[in-house]
């Protein structure tokens, strides 16, 4: 097996300085810009006050920034090795939430780890991608096309998705399924199989509908006809559209977003922060933010395409797709294109776990880039590293 030897052309360990030089600092600057936009909007959301959101947002970012760099500099083979353990620990936490979780906003999502309130479903978005990337890394293209080999990754996706759906958190469950699907696609699963799944999904939709909680049903129903409940669930969508639309091309100006400031917007600091930005900075500002994200996504693509190991490729693109879904679903939701599901805008929305997820994701993408030339044997690492 000469291939193994070939894949170890480089020394397994670079110096820290070499690694630091490999980090794409332009992207790090982009990430800081996104967090800065977030802080600005949170400052505005609190009526020109650092309290209670903007300040904590920045402090968290500063702390997580260290984590981001640490993740980026950590040898990718360590992530490869810990992919499964990380996944299963998260899965156990998800099960634990089921029994011991804190109930908030009608759902059982958080677990108190003493230091922080952790939302395992958020962490799962990263560890699932890690686990799937590791699994598909070890499969040849032929293996991927054998249905039997798909059973384990299917379990990896559906187990957490099912648990999260039970919390209930339709948004995150959907995100997990979408991220899993993306990795299946990237791994080379035949396209007709996706078609098959789509048809099957359509077939079990009525069953799934009945298993939904009433509030979830209502959300879907009011999404289909927001005017049916102008003061209830449809209210959020309507108000968000009014705020967004009234921003016009150039917006009302920073701190001038009357709709958001007067609390017509629900949860303006989290899920609806984009509405606020679009109200205050108009279409120019909204497109600007989309542009920032687009640059980050393009970087994720570039990293994935230039990585020499399959794990890195799948990981970078899987996480990029994941972040993309965050951005897309959140924006489409506040624009009234999708039902309201609780999905934050990465680095901009207020929220600890969400930022942790985003920063870990960015850190891993950067890590893939730093370690692009390291090859990982398909059968796994046999004790060479660490």
């Amino acid at each position, binding site marked *: 097996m000469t291939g193994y030897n070939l894949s170890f052309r480089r020394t397994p360990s670079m110096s820290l300085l070499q690694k630091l030089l490999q980090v794409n600092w332009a992207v790090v600057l982009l990430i800081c810009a996104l967090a800065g936009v977030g802080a600005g909007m949170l400052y505005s959301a609190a009526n020109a006050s650092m309290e209670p959101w903007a300040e904590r947002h920045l402090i968290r970012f500063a702390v997580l920034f260290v984590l981001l760099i640490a993740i980026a500099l950590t040898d990718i083979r360590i992530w490869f090795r810990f992919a499964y353990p990380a996944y299963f620990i998260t899965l156990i936490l998800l099960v634990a939430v089921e029994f011991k979780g804190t109930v908030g906003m009608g759902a059982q999502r958080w677990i108190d780890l003493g230091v922080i309130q952790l939302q395992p479903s958020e962490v799962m978005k990263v560890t699932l991608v890690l686990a799937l990337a590791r699994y598909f890394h070890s499969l040849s293209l032929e293996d991927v096309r054998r249905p039997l080999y798909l059973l384990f990754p299917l379990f990896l996706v559906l187990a957490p998705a099912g648990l999260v759906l039970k919390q209930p958190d339709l948004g995150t469950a959907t995100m997990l399924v979408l991220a899993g699907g993306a990795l299946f696609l990237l791994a*080379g699963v035949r396209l007709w199989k996706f078609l098959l799944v789509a048809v099957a999904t359509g077939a079990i939709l009525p069953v799934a509908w009945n298993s939904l909680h009433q509030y979830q049903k209502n959300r879907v129903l009011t999404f289909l006809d927001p005017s049916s409940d102008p003061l209830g669930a449809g209210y959020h969508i309507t108000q968000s559209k*009014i705020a*967004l*639309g009234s921003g016009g091309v150039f917006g009302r100006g920073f701190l001038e977003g*009357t709709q958001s400031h*007067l609390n017509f917007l629900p949860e303006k600091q989290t899920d609806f922060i984009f509405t606020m930005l679009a109200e205050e900075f108009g*279409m120019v500002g909204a497109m600007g933010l989309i542009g920032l994200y687009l640059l980050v996504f393009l970087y994720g693509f570039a990293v994935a395409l230039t990585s020499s190991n399959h794990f890195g490729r799948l990981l970078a*693109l899987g996480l990029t797709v994941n972040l993309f879904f965050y951005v*897309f679903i959140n924006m*489409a939701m506040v624009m009234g294109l999708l039902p309201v599901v609780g999905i934050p805008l990465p680095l901009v929305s207020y929220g600890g776990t969400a930022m942790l997820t985003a920063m870990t994701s960015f850190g891993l993408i950067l890590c893939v880039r730093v370690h692009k030339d390291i090859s990982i044997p398909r059968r796994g690492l046999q004790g060479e590293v660490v």
Partner: protein
Amino acid sequence: MSRARTEEQNRQKSFTRRALLLGSAKAALLSVLGARLYYLQVVDAERYRLLAEDNRISMRLSAPRRGRIVDRNGIPLAVNRQNYQVHMVAEQAQDVDRTLDALTHIIHLDREDRARVKRDIAARRSFVPVQVKDNLTWDQVSRIAVNSVELPGVFVEAGQSRHYPYGPTLAHIVGYVGAVSEQDLTGDPVLELPGFRIGKNGVEKVHDEELRGRAGNTQVEVNAVGRVMQQISRVEGQPGHDVELTLDMGLQNYAHQRLIGERSASAVVMDAITGDVLSLVSVPSYDPSAFTRGLSSSEWRSLIEDPLSPLSNKAISGQYAPGSTFKMVVSLAAMEHHIGPQEEVYCPGYMDLGNHRFHCWRRGGHGRMHMRDALKQSCDVYFYDIAKRLGIDAIASMARRMGFGQTVGIDLPSERTGLMPTEDWKLANIGERWQGGETLIQAIGQGYMLATPLQLAVMTARLVNGGKAIRPHVTRRIVGVENITEEVKEESPDLGLMPLQVKSILDAMDAVCNERRGTAYSARIHLPGWEMGGKTGTSQVRRITASERAAGIVRNEDLPWRRRDHALFVGYAPVHNPRYVCSVVVEHGGGGGSVAAPIARDLLIETQRRDPMDAMPPSPLAGLKE
């Protein structure tokens, strides 16, 4: 090339292809977002901007202070009183039940109150105050303040409520205010204020718009839950105008006291020259403050089911056969048709017409009567005789000029027209031809004819002022509003009566009171210079049958109240310089001379003593000590 390597390259190629596929899918999704943004923020921006404005700005109206109602001397008759109300904000109270329990130790809250509070709280946003109780005493207010720690979210607020210091004495004139009903809505936004009250009766109703004032408004910025964030602009409201009445409260008080002994009666005192109503009383009455407070259904039922109808203002809407008080009108009509006052008619105690005999109230008859004697002794046969010669339409025509058969136009609601029948009226409304005998009983104010006490006073005033068609009114002036007074000061149109003829009637009325055998002689005023003139009336409520007449007429006092005669009197004073007129109707009171005339006498004495119009020569008693 090794197999593994080829495979690795294949895998990479596949990955790249798939990545591009995914990338283009994402690009497509992002374009959807861009298109949506363009649609919302460019194409539809204007619509959303308008919606946003609506969301943000809210108008808050502030209720204006209602104008006062005062009497001619400025005595307040309807005022606004500080009214302490206890409110509760559910959001701050948290445990509503416990707070209500604590409150029950201080103020009385029955189960109905509690249910209403809970209902209001459920219906409103949790930060909107809900009224728990109003009309708190000062003691209760201070006890709530002292116990405020145990009463979270409870606070006392001073509002204004309408108060009527004279209560039932003025209820029929001043009226009352009540909650705005669906039909009251005119588009004036102030009417939609919660708890706003408008005039529902009396002067409160007639001059509601002047009394009401204009609401102030405050433009405030509100957030989605309606909480006020900041004030944008404020327009001060305008308090309502004060309304000054022609009423003399002292006289009104006296009149009410004088009448209250009767079960059901009414009286009007007015100035014959100006039409100023100085007093207008109807008993029984009710407490208008109860309406401001809000009546319970049992209170309301007992008011409307009371056979004495306390809610109705009998002085303007009670309709009675005027009886002999109508004889002045017949006399005027006679003189106008050249039946001189000296013409004599013989009264044998009855008059036959066709196969029917019409009796005089005096069984033995009055003998030879001319107009003055006939009025003085109220001889029925004299008026039968001249009525037969005049015909009903001649009498009706004069009656209309004197104010009967139509509203006289007082500025109070629900005045009624009474009824002055004619031949055409009977054909149209009853469908039969007029009978000759009906003219006879019409001449003594019986039959179909109906008149209100106000019409009787107006008739007397039109005699006293020499035939001027004065209109009665209770509003003297609206402070800050010009035109009302001008209309009042306008010279009343002349009715075209001959002064000498009027003089002879007033002279006969003088005789009624001040000459022996006059029907009101026993009720005359003994104070020299203050004497009154007048005319009694006793109107039958039932028909006297032939057998009754044969057996001797049953005395009124022996009949059940409902079947007794109405007692009426119209009068004026002082006889030598007439200015004040008065009409009194006591329902089922019996004889006009014995029951109504003494009341009128007392009212006219009191009126002259107070002399609200400064019409009197110095009192002959001025030098005497009381």
